[in-house]
């Protein structure tokens, strides 16, 4: 015999079977979600087209709209990376890697101490310095192009990848200082005080108190700096020639000369985009906090 007390009471948020109840959604909410999906798909269409075409043979790539059924091939990538086109992308990819990675490391080496000093304020009027950093981001970049070109010409650094390394470092430094400052602000002052009470020196404090809290922030900052440097086109186009040209510059030339071979060009575009896509998705969660200069947590 089963008494009524044998069954456990079912919470209101669960169905009789015990599964969590679906949250009730209004019809307008559903329409919104659906609309968001439609616009989201529209957003991704160009990228999808690029990825699909890059995997087609040239004849299949020429059909429009691109057929999904066409047999996939890596011929486009082989044509791009191979010497088939008479040029090879490897030097430009190496240049981009040098410029982005080196400048990112330099930015970290310069911005972390600066942001640290600026966020604990041992000097009055410190915020002025912070806003000076920020204000340099208001300059129209195009306006700086010519002076930097003339400067590079006079010191013989045109078509030299190290000029771009230095330029990208200073280009990303202001934003990196602000980002690092926002991440450092998450270190509780009480923890710093406690460390100093316990007699920890600067190195010890940085190692044991600050580093663990700000590590994710440092990672996000470096990924964002990497993306900006890798993607930069305007200065790279003007300041480099055949020796130091970066991957985006190479791609622009490749599109001009090989534009009719869509599969090959799409493969090139995918190859040039891949590093920043990986970096971008790795940084996705911290992207907004960093780029809004800490306005959003």
């Amino acid at each position: 015999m089963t008494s009524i007390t044998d069954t456990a009471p079912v919470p209101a948020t669960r169905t009789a079977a015990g599964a969590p109840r679906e949250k009730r959604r209004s019809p307008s909410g559903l329409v919104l979600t659906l609309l968001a999906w439609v616009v989201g798909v529209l957003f991704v269409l160009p990228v999808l087209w690029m990825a699909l075409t890059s995997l087609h043979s040239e004849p299949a790539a020429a059909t429009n709209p691109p057929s999904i059924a066409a047999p996939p091939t890596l011929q486009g990538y082989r044509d791009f990376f191979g010497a088939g086109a008479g040029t090879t992308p490897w030097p430009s990819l190496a240049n981009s890697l040098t410029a982005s990675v080196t400048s990112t490391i330099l930015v970290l080496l310069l911005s972390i101490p600066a942001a640290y000093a600026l966020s604990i304020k041992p000097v009055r009027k410190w915020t002025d310095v912070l806003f000076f950093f920020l204000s340099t981001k208001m300059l129209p970049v195009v306006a700086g192009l010519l002076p930097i070109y003339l400067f590079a010409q006079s010191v013989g650094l045109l078509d030299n990848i190290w000029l771009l390394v230095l330029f990208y470092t200073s280009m990303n430094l202001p934003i990196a200082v602000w980002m690092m400052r926002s991440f450092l602000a998450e270190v509780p002052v009480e923890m710093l005080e406690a460390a100093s009470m316990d007699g920890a020196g600067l190195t010890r404090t940085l190692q044991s108190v600050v580093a663990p809290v700000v590590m994710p922030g440092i990672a996000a900052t470096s990924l964002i700096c990497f993306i900006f440097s890798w993607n930069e086109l305007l200065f790279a186009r003007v300041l480099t020639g055949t020796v130091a040209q970066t991957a985006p510059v190479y791609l622009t030339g490749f599109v001009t000369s090989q534009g009719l071979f869509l599969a090959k060009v799409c493969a090139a575009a995918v190859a040039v985009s891949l590093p920043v896509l990986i970096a971008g998705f790795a940084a996705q969660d911290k992207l907004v906090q960093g780029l809004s200069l800490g306005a959003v947590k």
Partner: protein
Amino acid sequence: MGWARLPAAEPALDAVATGATAAPAATMPAGRAGPATDVVGLGRWRALGFVTPGLVLIGVFLVFPALWTLYIGVTDYRLTGTAARAPQIVGLENYRRALTDPTFYRSMWLTLVFVLGSAVLGQNLLGFFFAYALRPARPAVRRLVEALVLLAWILPSSVVAFLWIAMLDRDGGTVNVLLGQVPGVAWLIEYPMVAIVVFNIWRGTAFSMMLYSAALSGVPPSQLETARLAGASTGQTLRDVILPNIRRYALTNTLLITLWTFNDFTPFLLTAGGPNHRSEVVAAYIYNTAIVGGEMGYSGAISLLVLLVNLLLALVYLRVARVRPA
């Protein structure tokens, strides 16, 4: 120089930069009123040593070129010819010319349309729409949609320019094929401004979406619940509960995307400012005047005027941001 004196707006900017959260008050004593705090004993000199290398680099690569541009702006410097070898000081002639030049005003007008249409309205509203619509979705779904929209934001400008030129092509472009007309409309030639506005909405919405997504997650659920129990409509809830809570974020977002869009060079890669200057926003105008036309002195003057407009925009937003919601 004007932009070096930004600290006048410091308290407001500080509020914008640190947002509406309570954290800054606890972790970072606001420097404007309280005494300087140096809990870990970094010391004045060591602190200066930490900051100086970065300042030097910025001085060489950002400030020095800006000062040079300022100087060039009062000369008749050109890329080629006699004026290239021995530029003469012409005083404010370049500024007089710019302020009486219809092409300058046209590029400012096109920039205004571009910034208002693609950033202030386009990215802002679409970004908010995405964030709002995806709010009830599961975190994994939200992350996926965000990642899809983020693609457009991350890709190198050389790649997105190629993609859009290929998709909008008159003869074989996918857009015309989908519309069922080949050869169809030469979008970039017939509607250059519409094309770059739509392009920039596509390119930049991800940032606004993610920012609003973070902002909306900070709206207290209790307030939303109260509104629901009181029988408020969606519109009323948006106006009376959500907007007051995210107002500060909206201002920060609008300021950032305005400045970015104002100085964005990518539209040039699509239309080169043409045809016939019809999409020549200021970044393209400066490039065409300086690099293509070779008139360095004149473009230097325009650059400074553009800089002043940027500064003005920032100050207006900061003034608005300063007024706290009641």
